[in-house]
């Protein structure tokens, strides 16, 4: 049966990656930015798995990498939300454009 070529998967992942990237550059809400970062990570995951399954010398490393990314992503989100909350307590806003006491 016909296979979807590896390139297609990677292209899709690249699209997702840059969508996330654009999100980080565009949105003001810290939480949304966090989501966009997650999208980027997922794009990477997709690429990794695709490579690991479809490369000539296919091995499971890609998948292993992805598992670690899961862990890291979880940790990141936890810490990230904690930071956002701590900040939100001092100044009830998650608008990153308002967090500019330090500049120059």
């Amino acid at each position, binding site marked *: 049966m016909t296979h979807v070529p590896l390139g297609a998967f*990677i292209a899709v992942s690249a699209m997702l990656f840059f969508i996330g990237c654009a999100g980080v550059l565009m*949105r003001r809400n810290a939480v949304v930015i966090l989501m966009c970062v997650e999208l980027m990570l997922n794009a990477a995951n997709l690429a990794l798995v695709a490579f690991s399954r479809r490369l000539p010398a296919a091995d499971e490393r890609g998948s292993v990498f992805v598992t670690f990314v899961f862990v890291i992503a979880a940790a990141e989100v936890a810490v990230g939300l904690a930071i956002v909350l701590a900040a939100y307590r001092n100044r009830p806003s998650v608008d990153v454009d308002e967090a500019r006491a330090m500049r120059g």
Partner: protein
Amino acid sequence: MFDLIEPIVFVLLSVALVGAGAAVVLLRRITSGALLMAFTFLCIAGMFVLLGAETIAAFQVLIYVGAITVLILYGVMFTPQSPRSYPLFFQRQTPLAAVFVALIAVPVVFIALSFRDGGPPASGGGDLVPLATSLFGPFAFPFEVASVLLLAAMIGAIALVKREDPLDDEFGEERL
């Protein structure tokens, strides 16, 4: 005609994936954004299945669609925003950013297409066994480190949000 299933599924998934992702970026309601993100994760899981990596797909559903989405939803709930007009959801630099991202994305996507396919997965069937063996075999050390990472994140997160001294009370109980 069965041999066209995979491409069709792939196309559908891709469209959904990209569409949902774009929605996350563009949608104003954060809660629905979060849910769309979860949907994106699901599509990714689908991709994994398509690639024959069922185990990873499972993890994906558990961790992302499960844990992370929930976390983020909590985060969204704890940080309510005063309603504002649509443009204010975006930074002033949005157009410029779009240009830059496009400048990079377009060539990269085309370059991505250039990856040559190695044919069907050499070892047919599931990826559970190889994954498990390598995780607890050669990758034992990073595995341990990863666990420490989770510990560190936990401690840190607690340290950042726990309320012990009166200073915290000036911020409303009712919020948390």
